[in-house]
């Protein structure tokens, strides 16, 4: 039998790899083809973050998120992309973590996911505003927030599907 530490390491590494594959896939079939808004995306890798947060634990979820962002930026992003993702990802995590005690009684995976998506948009725009030195990037915020509702519902629904397939108690 594997001891639980080894098991945890293997599981977290697998989830990180899955999150990376999802962000790579999203780069190929991005939402940006439909909507030319900087930063608009489906946010598929949030499936992994939310899954880990709810069905494993918060430290694992945070670890997977940060590893995914660092490795992902080494693969495809630049320094600026790294900062946008890190700020957005961190904001999304904080909000979902703060709301997670309400699960499953008052909020479902859908609500958590929408909140995370919206927080990601806001954090990303805030980072872009600091980096570009102008508040005018906030002009994109209304659209990004609007888009984060359907996209959050999609990714939240996918977490639900994944959880059912892996026979987690919902």
């Amino acid at each position, binding site marked *: 039998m594997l001891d639980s530490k080894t098991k945890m390491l293997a599981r977290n590494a697998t989830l990180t790899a899955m999150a990376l594959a999802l962000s790579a896939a999203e780069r190929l079939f991005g939402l*940006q083809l439909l909507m*030319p*808004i*900087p*930063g608009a995306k489906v946010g598929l890798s949030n499936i992994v973050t939310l899954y880990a947060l709810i069905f494993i634990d918060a430290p694992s979820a945070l670890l997977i998120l940060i590893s995914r962002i660092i490795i992902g930026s080494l693969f495809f992003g*630049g320094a*600026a992309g790294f900062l*946008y993702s890190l700020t957005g990802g961190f904001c999304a995590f904080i909000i979902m973590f703060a*709301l997670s005690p*309400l699960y499953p009684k*008052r*909020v*479902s*995976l*859908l*609500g958590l996911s*929408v*909140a995370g998506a*919206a927080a990601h948009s*806001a954090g990303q725009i805030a980072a*872009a505003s600091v*980096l*570009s*030195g*102008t508040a*005018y*990037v*906030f*002009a*994109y*915020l*209304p*659209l990004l*927030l*609007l888009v*984060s*509702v359907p996209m959050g519902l999609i990714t939240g*629904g996918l977490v*639900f599907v994944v959880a059912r397939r892996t026979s987690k108690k919902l």
Partner: protein
Amino acid sequence: MKLKMGDMLIIAIVLLCALAALLPFLGSSGATKAEIYKDGKLLYTVDLKKDQILEVEEKYHNVIEVKNGKIHFKESNCPDKVCVRSGYASKGRPALVCLPNRVVIKLLVSDGEVDLIVG
């Protein structure tokens, strides 16, 4: 899978925030000038009444065109080209951004214009 009360509350809050974030950008129009910034530093002030082509040569190469009083990113060799596909700056979109190049085009509302008169 059904939406719970909390979910609907979250969605409502996000939509309200989107609406609130939109407010500062309503009703700004009649721009006759635009400014082009790189990293928050003013590079050019552009007269929109004059058709012209400007080039910004930084990490990437942006070609900015002014035509018929409107301004847009005409060409760019940045990886995502979101700036080019964003189209023209307008009332609803008073700023255009090329994030990879960190270049921002911002419309300036003409001097002395009154935003709102109450009374």
